[in-house]
């Protein structure tokens, strides 16, 4: 917040009015511009940390006191300071201080890590070209307009416009893994035709103001040449190197800084992350409210009774306890009010101050277990799981909806060329492999059993595969590979070819190029706008690359325009069938459609390949159109899109390819387990329906018995009705089938082992979804949505195909905001999943039930404070505390907090193996089962029972306070100490009873806590403390232990108060040794 504000003041203040910024490359004034005004941009310092050394204390304190519980305790503390209250401010001040300190330390530590990371980035040495020299600078000193050099494997220190690359073709490769998670190499291009001499490049860059979209950038570069009109070059995202991305496979690049520091796209993307509150914290707050009500009513009851009691003569002011003048003079109502406050203070411990800190510590330490888990470790990338926020760990146990991407998440995103279809004839790659012996030029890769297409068509298709892509040949050692390949071509060794390294932004492209290689056409590389391929005769063919019409998810195709040696201009286009078929001749489609659909149902990714020959005039039109569109500053995207669509028409279809994307290991098992756990799995993918559907079958999301409800463009096609009418009809029909006729099942328990229940799967595609979400008549929107949502909620699996990234997020948002606000979890790997991941509650994981201890803590406090409340009836409502201040203070933070923390961290109430085998167990904890009102009520009642027991048990004992064999009597502090001892032992042993998984840490902490209590009591009562104004506990504990009666009463009270818990444990225990663990947690045997 503050940081951002400062930034806008320092950096963007005067720029707010203009929507573009002008950058002088190398800070050189340029001839043609009005005046050289070096505008002020912000420096390149990244500040991800929240605090600085000097503002840590106030800012952190402010943030912590915004939390209800902390604020409440602060108020109590202030009341204690101001008003004459029964307990000293220390009793609530110390725990509060402890909680605040622990939280501050945790947050300080996290911030320190951020500072360290910031510093690492900000102090990183970079090379800046300044006045013809390379100067080493700290990264934070980079200014907008600086020309920066970056070498291989370094990350870019700021957002740069690529001016120069060590590669000849003016490209460089980057990975943006740290930005959007995509580890593919991406190609970026230098600004065309820039001077080689960067030192004296007189140029300005005009570009838009910083904005967070990683994939959008528009700008224009003016290059000034003496005595000439300034040349203008368009700049797009392909020229922009983003801070945080890493340079790969390129020795060195230079670029001019356009955005720095907090204005880089990376920084803009990480800003403004709102702190999500976990559901657990919300329910804790609700319980706190209940306890606050109990507290207030207790205080009201006591205050009322006090004044009723005092109205009796002689009670208020007996001769032995006269009031002083000040007390006598105080206004009656003011006295009542201070009495009320005093009672509040006395009972305030009913609200456990340490609860938040326990929960926080548990989450913080619990996240380490995720990080440490060996099973999350991927040996391939040498990385384990990374927990980005510890706030949401417990949500992992509460997930109801899982949204998953298909490519790269369910599948490996590791493509393999399977087959192709040329002119309607099928070519199987695997078959050719086996028939390599018979491989001849004329024979071709054709399956002998089948007819084959004409050789011309075949070669055209393979050339298209070789040319229509953005693949790069890996630079390092390429010659070596090349020779290998040349040597091996006669020796029938395909291996060297396989080893040829390709780099591409998408693995399908590599698969296709590899596929073409199998059939004899090898792509050799792109050098200075000329693509080289080696054909079957081992001749090198050269093509001049004129234009690349990049792939985008909306068009779902890409094209290249190349010029052959003979001067022909060809356009090759490849893309999804749906985007190609309308643009080619219908009669060609019919021959290929069948193959495409068959391939799609088999789960392969299919692409269609088309081409067209451009006449000189046609090309001229396209060329100018494309160039113009690229230079446009406004609406460049739309203009380009229009141009692309215009060029990519009237093509002829040559063939189609099928590429397999293998399922991830154990994808099917995982999906089955997720469904078994009662979670609903939604697959959101951009793929076509058939492919996605077959993947769903492959990973057992849909099973044979699953009835599929399809809501796609295909099912909407109906002669009689308009699309929307049909949609409504279908929605109603599906709703009747899936929702109304289905037996009423509780949410979250949809899939069961019994086959009686019909499983439904739901399929919807992007076009239909947008119809559902934004119908033509606004009035229908809510009806459509609710029907859609209800259907989806009753389906075990939902497949959304042909989704745009934004639609993915839309769906997640819709489910998240639906009734009951279920917890959602998104898994994805690509950039198209980012929005969906940000939208969902949780990033990823498996574990849960920790919220439970929060409630436990509060019932601890009920039986802790109840005796204190009851004591008021016996002390004339004078707010006399039952326990010593030290006990009041220590109860939450020392005596009871550690066992609960250890319990919440280490408890495995079901063993790991059983958990892994029975995903259904997850249902037990879903929906915050442990935090619902019933257990809460149970614990409250139990707490009241125990509180009554503690107090009255000791009360009856004290009907004769002579408890020692020397006839001496015990006083009030002995009374309190006995109650407190019973209390500490009871709550700790109760936890012990609940602990099913005793590691040495549990033993240590539980017995240690009790030992600590005993030790502390001896110590506290064993010394005359010089700083205390009274020594009321002096030897009270030791004296108590010297009394047999005290021992006996402690033992019997502990046993009696644990009895309900023991009975419960015993009665719930399964009988018989075989089924003993699982039995318990399943609602039904299977």
């Amino acid at each position, binding site marked *: 917040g503050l940081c951002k504000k400062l930034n806008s003041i320092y950096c963007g203040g005067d720029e707010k009015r203009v929507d573009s910024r002008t950058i002088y490359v190398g800070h050189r004034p340029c001839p043609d511009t009005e005046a050289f005004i070096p505008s002020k941009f912000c420096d390149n310092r990244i500040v991800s940390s929240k605090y600085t050394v000097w503002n840590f204390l106030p800012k952190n304190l402010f943030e912590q006191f915004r939390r209800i519980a902390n604020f409440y305790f602060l108020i109590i503390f202030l009341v204690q300071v101001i008003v004459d209250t029964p307990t000293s401010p220390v009793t609530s001040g110390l725990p509060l201080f402890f909680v605040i300190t622990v939280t501050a330390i945790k947050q300080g530590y996290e911030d320190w890590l951020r500072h360290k990371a910031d510093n690492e980035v900000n102090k990183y040495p970079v090379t800046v070209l300044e006045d013809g020299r390379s100067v080493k600078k700290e990264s934070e000193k980079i200014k907008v307009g600086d020309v920066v050099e970056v070498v291989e494997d370094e990350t870019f220190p700021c957002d740069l416009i690529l001016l120069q690359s060590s590669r000849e073709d003016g490209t460089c490769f980057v990975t943006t893994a740290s930005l959007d998670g995509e580890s593919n190499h991406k190609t970026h291009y230098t600004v065309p035709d820039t001077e080689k001499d960067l030192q004296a490049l007189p140029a300005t860059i005009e570009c838009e103001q910083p904005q967070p979209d990683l994939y959008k950038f528009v700008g224009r570069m003016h290059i000034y040449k003496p005595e000439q009109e300034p040349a203008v070059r368009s700049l797009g995202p392909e020229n922009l190197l983003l801070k945080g991305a890493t340079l790969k496979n390129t020795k060195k690049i230079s670029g001019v800084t356009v955005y720095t520091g907090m204005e880089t796209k990376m920084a803009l993307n990480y800003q403004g992350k709102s702190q999500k509150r976990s559901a657990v914290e919300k329910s804790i707050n609700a319980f706190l409210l209940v306890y606050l009500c109990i507290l207030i009513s207790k205080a009201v009851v006591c205050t009322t009774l006090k004044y009723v009691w005092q109205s009796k003569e*002689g009670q208020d002011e007996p001769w032995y306890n006269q009031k002083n003048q000040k007390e006598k003079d105080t206004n009656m109502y003011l006295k009542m009010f201070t009495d009320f406050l005093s009672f509040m203070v006395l009972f305030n411990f009913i609200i456990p101050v340490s609860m938040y800190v326990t929960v926080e510590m548990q989450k913080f330490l619990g996240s380490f277990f995720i990080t440490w888990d060996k099973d999350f470790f991927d040996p391939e990338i040498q990385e*384990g799981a990374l927990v980005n926020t510890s706030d949401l760990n417990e949500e992992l146990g509460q997930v109801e909806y899982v949204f998953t991407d298909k490519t790269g998440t369910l599948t490996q995103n590791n493509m393999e060329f399977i087959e192709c279809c040329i002119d309607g004839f099928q070519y199987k790659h695997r078959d050719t492999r086996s028939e390599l012996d018979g491989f001849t030029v004329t024979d071709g890769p054709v399956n002998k059993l089948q007819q084959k297409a004409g050789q011309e068509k075949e070669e055209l298709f393979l050339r298209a595969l070789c040319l229509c892509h953005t693949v790069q040949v890996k630079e390092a050692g390429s010659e070596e590979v090349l020779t290998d390949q040349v040597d091996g071509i006669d020796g029938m060794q395909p291996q060297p070819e396989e080893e040829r390294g390709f780099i591409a932004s998408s693995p399908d492209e590599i698969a296709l190029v590899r596929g073409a290689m199998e059939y004899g056409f090898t792509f050799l590389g792109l050098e200075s706008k000329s693509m080289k391929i080696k054909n079957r005769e081992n001749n090198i063919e050269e093509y001049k690359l004129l234009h690349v019409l990049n792939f985008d998810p909306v068009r779902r195709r890409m094209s290249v325009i190349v010029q052959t040696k003979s001067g022909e201009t060809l356009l090759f286009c490849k893309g999804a069938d749906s985007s190609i078929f309308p643009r080619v001749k219908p009669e060609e489609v019919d021959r290929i459609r069948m193959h495409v659909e068959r391939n799609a149902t088999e789960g392969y990714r299919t692409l269609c390949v088309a081409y067209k020959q451009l006449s000189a005039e046609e090309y001229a039109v396209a060329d100018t159109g494309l160039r113009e569109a690229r230079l446009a500053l406004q609406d460049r995207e739309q203009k380009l899109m229009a141009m692309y669509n215009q060029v990519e028409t009237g093509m002829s279809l040559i063939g189609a390819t099928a590429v397999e994307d293998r399922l991830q290991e154990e994808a099917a098992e995982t999906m089955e387990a997720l469904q078994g756990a009662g979670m609903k799995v939604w697959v959101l993918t951009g793929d076509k329906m058939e492919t996605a559907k077959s993947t769903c079958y492959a990973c057992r999301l849909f099973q044979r018995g699953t009835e599929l409800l399809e809501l796609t463009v295909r099912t909407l096609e109906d002669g009689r009705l308009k699309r929307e009418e049909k949609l409504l009809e279908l929605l109603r029909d599906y709703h009747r089938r899936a929702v109304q006729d289905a037996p009423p099942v509780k949410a979250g328990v949809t899939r069961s082992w019994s086959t009686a229940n019909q499983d439904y799967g739901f399929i919807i595609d992007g076009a239909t979804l947008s119809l559902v979400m934004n119908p033509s008549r606004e009035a229908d929107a809510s009806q459509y949505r609710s029907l859609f949502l209800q259907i989806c909620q009753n389906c075990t699996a939902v497949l959304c195909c042909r989704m745009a990234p934004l639609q993915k997020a839309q769906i997640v948002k819709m489910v998240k905001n639906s009734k009951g606000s279920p917890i959602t979890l998104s898994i994805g790997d690509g950039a198209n999943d980012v929005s969906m991941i940000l939208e969902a509650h949780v990033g990823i994981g498996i574990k849960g039930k920790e919220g439970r201890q929060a409630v436990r803590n509060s019932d601890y406090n009920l039986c802790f404070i109840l005796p204190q409340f009851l004591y008021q009836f016996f002390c004339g409502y004078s707010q006399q505390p039952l326990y010593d201040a030290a006990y009041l203070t220590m109860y939450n933070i020392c005596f009871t907090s550690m066992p609960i923390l250890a319990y919440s961290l280490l408890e495995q109430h079901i063993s790991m193996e059983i958990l892994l085998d029975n995903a259904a167990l997850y249902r037990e904890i879903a929906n915050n089962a442990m935090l619902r009102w019933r257990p809460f009520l149970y614990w409250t009642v139990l707490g009241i029972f125990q509180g009554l027991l503690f107090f009255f048990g000791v009360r009856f004992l004290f009907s004769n306070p002579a408890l*020692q064999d020397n006839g001496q009597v015990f006083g009030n502090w002995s009374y309190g100490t006995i109650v407190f001892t019973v209390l500490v032992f009871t709550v700790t042993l109760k936890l012990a009873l609940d602990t099913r998984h005793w590691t040495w840490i549990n033993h240590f902490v539980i017995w240690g806590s009790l030992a600590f209590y005993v030790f502390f009591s001896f110590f506290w009562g064993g010394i005359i403390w010089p700083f205390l104004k009274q020594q009321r506990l002096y030897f009270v504990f030791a004296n108590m232990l010297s009394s*047999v009666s005290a021992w006996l009463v402690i033992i019997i009270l502990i046993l009696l108060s644990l009895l309900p818990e023991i009975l419960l444990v015993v009665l719930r225990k399964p009988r018989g040794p075989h089924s003993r663990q699982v039995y318990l947690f399943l609602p039904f045997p299977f």
Partner: protein
Amino acid sequence: MKNEGEATERPDNTAFTQQWLPAWQPILSAGIVIPGFLIIGLAFIGIGIGLFLTSQTIQVLEMDYTGIEKDSPCFRCTIQSVQNCTCEVTFSLSALFTGPVFFYYGLSNYFQNFRKYGVSKDYYQLTGDTQYFKSPRDVCSPYSYDSKNNPIVPCGAIANSMFNDTFELYQIINGTKKKVPLDGKGISWWTDYNIKYRNPLSVNGSFASAFDGTVKPINWPKAAYELDLTDPNNNGFLNQDFLVWMRRAALPQFRKLYRRITEGDYAMGLPAGNYSLTVHYNYPVLSFDGRKKLVFSNVSWMGGKNDFLGIAYLVVGSLCMVMAVVMLIVYAKFKFSEEDDA
């Protein structure tokens, strides 16, 4: 806990980080719980019987001497105008009251546990720190200064309200009174007497001089240094009666130890016969509807007479037994039905 630095590297393969710590998983099966309950039940019943019987053997003699009734011996003293009132309470024992006999006084509807009352003392004064004699703590108010603004030592409500009825016990043998020696030592906590409370050091050999410039508490007939002039070790703040009083009672109905009967002819107890108790009646309780009583009691290993503990043990022990039986029945039934299923 462990070093987080390695977290991004390969995770440690230790039992702790992988949550494979060897664990003991106790299962409260019927085979453990039922015998457990039986044993606990038996033990508790045993203890309960022991406690109950012990409690039964303890003799207690209680006498209210407030003087509410017109015919009660101390009625005379309840009239405010009477000063230095003495009354005589008689009782007779039909059998030997086994010694050592403990002599308590009891008060009811007396709130020593009032919060304001409870803090109304100056601990530093009571440790003999004469600095605080001149300026008692505020919490003592309104018992910190007298009307002439002299500091009160010991200040505060607790000290001021010290119980000041005194008793003499006589056995009446053939019409003559034989004084029963009362032992005032060892009636307060050892630590209170020896460590917690301290007398101020004598000034010029005179203990009283240490209290110069201070006045006695308003309700006290004599100053702190005159509490027991016969025994310097029982004088001042170390007076045992004072110490007993300063240890606040937990409940509004309480008893405090007054004397022990351990000496002379009565070391074995009070023999059967008639006794007369002379009460120097000074302590007013009627204004707040309080009661005063005398209690003679002997003690056992469990302290004074208290039937509660024994009964509680018997009840809980029986409860455990009953539950064990019920569980046994349930268990047997389920076990059989399970076998039928199988």
